[in-house]
């Protein structure tokens, strides 16, 4: 890990030192790739990589928002890791960007946050250095906020800290002093400002080592003279600064301000042509940068020029000002969004958790509901089944009762018959026998011819009585109603159903079937099957005639129900409830059922039930 860190830092330093714009972008890409590939790797190096990317963006490109994005990423990770120095470093970067984008209040807050972090750390060079940079930043922020006293305090603190540092950092200190002097200049403390500027310019090495800075400081010094209205050395000092600046980079960034100052100076002294020249030069150069400097140049030109040209410059100024402000606002919004997005993600996480909870609750409720639904449906089905069974039992009972009542009526008929025979014996035969006996008895004593003849007559009478008794005996012997009970029930059923359904019916019965020997269960099922069949014929077959016949073949009752209706497809209709019921009933009495049907020529149902 240390190697990686080292590697990243080395790249950072190298690219910082020698990097050009193009190669910087390449470096950023390679670092980005590293970050992309390092998923799941240790977070320290990840954060460091993010930090470095941000640094490149800040220092070498105008993409402040990208820098802010990576700083923010790094900040998050460092916060988690609780590494204070790195975090402070990152926050400093953010503060600088915020300052550059004129979010001064934000920058102040971030800087203070970074400083607070650093308070926890031991004072070593790195910490002191960083602190000084932060103070420097705060100084600039407060200068921009026009709180000059605060600004001066921070610059002083910064310089103090820089002086504490080991090694040669004269240049570094000078930069801060320059900043301090700038604040003083703005605060109209020109004498003090002049003093600090001269202090820097006194450093003979500066013009050799950093001519660009020297040019800037010189310009500032000259401007201070101008502002304090000491025109003795002017505009020579401006020219000197311009010359040095141009020697570093012809018409570079630093030369804008010098040109502006010159234009300002000449304008004051009424040398319009010269003022115009320098004003336009400043404008031309600053157009490359398209920022506040251009704005200043335009304002200056509008002062220098007169009439339409001035008005045009002013218009341009306002337009640019607007667009710059707009940009700033956009950038600031972008920062806010980057920050906000994390909180948004956090909020989303909470939202997710909530949603997950709701999902859980809903699914639990759903499961319970569906379970209950299942129970209800199940219960309902069971109830239906029970009701069906009950209905079945009721009909079975009905048939049973029917058979019982039939039996009763048979019994009654038997009783009546018994009574009739008894009556016949008593009133008819017995009376005649008594009469004959009495007559014979009275004739017994008489042996006359006539008496013998009369006796013969009564003996014949006895023979007649004999025959009568035989007849009665025969009547007793033939059980005129035995076994006809069930078939009577069936006949009644068929006749009543056929009448209701308006179908002609015909019942053929095999008298050899002894229905008394067949169990009630079988009789009930046979009854129900016939009933169901008749119902089906009425409902579906549209038949004119139905023939029902019972036959006994090898101890198997063959019941056939034949209609002349429209018929149906046997295979298709197998699933009907009626047929299912019939099948169940048949299998319960060990029987078989066969249905044959042809379209428009009727249906034949054949049922075979063994007697035993």
């Amino acid at each position, binding site marked *: 890990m240390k190697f990686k860190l080292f590697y990243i830092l080395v790249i950072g330093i190298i690219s910082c030192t020698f990097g050009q714009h193009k190669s910087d972008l390449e470096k950023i890409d390679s670092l980005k790739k590293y970050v992309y590939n390092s998923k799941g790797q240790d977070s320290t190096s990840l954060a460091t990589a993010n930090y470095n990317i941000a640094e490149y963006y800040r220092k070498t490109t105008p993409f402040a928002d990208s820098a802010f994005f990576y700083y923010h990423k790094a900040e998050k990770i460092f916060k988690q890791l609780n590494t204070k120095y790195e975090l402070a470093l990152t926050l400093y970067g953010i503060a600088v960007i915020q300052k550059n984008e004129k979010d001064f209040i934000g920058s102040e807050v971030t800087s203070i946050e970074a400083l607070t972090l650093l308070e926890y750390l031991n004072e070593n060079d790195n910490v002191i250095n960083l602190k000084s940079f932060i103070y420097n930043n705060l100084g600039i922020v407060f200068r921009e906020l026009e709180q000059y006293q605060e600004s001066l305090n921070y610059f002083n603190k910064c310089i103090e800290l820089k002086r504490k540092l080991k090694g040669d950092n004269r240049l570094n200190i000078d930069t801060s002093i320059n900043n301090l002097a700038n604040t003083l200049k703005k605060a109209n403390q020109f004498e003090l400002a002049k003093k600090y500027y001269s202090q820097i310019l006194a450093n003979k090495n500066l013009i050799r080592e950093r001519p660009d800075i020297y040019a800037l400081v010189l310009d500032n010094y000259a401007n201070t003279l101008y502002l304090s209205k000491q025109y003795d050395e002017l505009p020579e000092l401006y020219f000197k600064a311009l010359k040095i600046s141009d020697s570093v980079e012809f018409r570079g960034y630093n030369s804008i301000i010098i040109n502006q100052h010159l234009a300002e100076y000449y304008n004051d002294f009424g040398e319009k042509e010269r003022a115009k020249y320098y004003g336009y030069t400043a404008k031309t150069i600053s157009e490359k940068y398209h920022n506040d400097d251009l704005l200043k140049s335009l304002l200056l030109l509008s002062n220098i020029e007169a009439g339409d040209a001035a008005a045009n410059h002013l218009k341009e100024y306002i337009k640019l000002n607007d667009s710059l402000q707009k940009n700033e606002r956009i950038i600031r919004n972008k920062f806010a969004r980057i920050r906000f997005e994390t909180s948004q993600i956090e909020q989303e996480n909470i939202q997710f958790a909530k949603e997950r909870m709701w999902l859980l609750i809903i699914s639990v409720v759903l499961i319970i509901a569906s379970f209950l639904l299942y129970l209800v449906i199940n219960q309902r089905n069971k109830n239906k089944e029970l009701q069906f069974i009950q209905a079945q039992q009721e009909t079975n009972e009905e048939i049973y009762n029917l058979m019982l009542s039939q039996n009763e009526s048979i019994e009654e008929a038997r009783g009546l018959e018994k009574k009739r025979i008894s009556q016949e014996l008593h009133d008819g035969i*017995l009376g005649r026998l*008594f009469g*004959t006996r*009495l*007559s014979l*008895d*009275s*004739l*017994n004593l*008489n042996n006359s011819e006539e008496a013998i003849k009369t006796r013969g007559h009564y003996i014949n009478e006895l023979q007649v009585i004999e025959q009568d008794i035989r007849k009665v005996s025969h009547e007793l012997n033939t059980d005129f109603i035995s076994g006809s009970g069930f078939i009577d029930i069936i006949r009644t059923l068929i006749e009543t159903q056929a009448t209701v359904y308006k179908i002609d019916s015909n019942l053929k019965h095999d008298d050899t079937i002894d229905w008394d020997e067949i169990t009630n269960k079988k009789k009930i099922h046979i009854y129900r099957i016939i009933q169901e069949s008749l119902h089906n014929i009425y409902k579906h077959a549209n038949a004119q005639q139905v023939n029902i016949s019972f036959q006994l073949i090898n101890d198997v009752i063959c019941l056939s129900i034949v209609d002349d209706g429209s018929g149906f497809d046997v295979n298709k209709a197998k699933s009907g409830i009626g047929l299912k019921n019939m099948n169940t009933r048949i299998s319960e009495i060990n029987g078989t059922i066969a249905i044959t049907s042809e379209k428009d020529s009727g249906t034949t149902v054949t049922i075979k039930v063994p007697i035993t």
Partner: protein
Amino acid sequence: MNQKIKILMIDDHPMIIEGYQNTLLFTKKENQVLEIDIANNCDEAIAFMDKAVEKETPYHVLFVDISLPPSKDGLMTSGEDLASYARKVLPNAKIIILTMFNESFRIHNIIKTIDPEGFLIKSDLTSSELASAFQAVLNNPPFYSGTVNSFIRKAISSDIVIDEKNRKILHLLSQGVKTKNLVQHLDISLSAIEKRKKQLREIFEVNDGQDETLLNAARDRGFV
């Protein structure tokens, strides 16, 4: 001097009347002249009786069968009713009841309501008994056949007294009529019937509640 005897025989079986006729004709005394009218049903019987009253030639003897088809107007349902009627319109006529019934209830009832001069049970009747009964009724009534006599003796010898309603209950029960259906026959409430049955059980010293036991006890004592 010839004794002219007017007889009305009421029976729905011509064969039986023939038997009576034969017996009487063969066994009558020499001086007796029998004038026999035959009625095969209640209506004919009433007609004969009314005619006899009208002509003032009343019958001397009536042979009445108990089981007869009822009259057309429904007033006469049996020989019993005919006999009662005869007692009213022909007070001097001698009535001989001939019946297949040998149940004690009928016998008791007939004796009570009609008090016939002769009471013969067809099943144990012979021609000689009929002949002697005929003569006895004419000269020295009453004449009851052996079965009737033994029944009367039984009823008298037992110190049990049973009123009409209770007799009828026993009779109907012996016919196989169920207790709950007795209400229709007797015109008394079911609870009254139950009370009477309880009374009967006490009289016959029957302990269990079955009709069968009660009937057996009553049969032994000659009440059924």
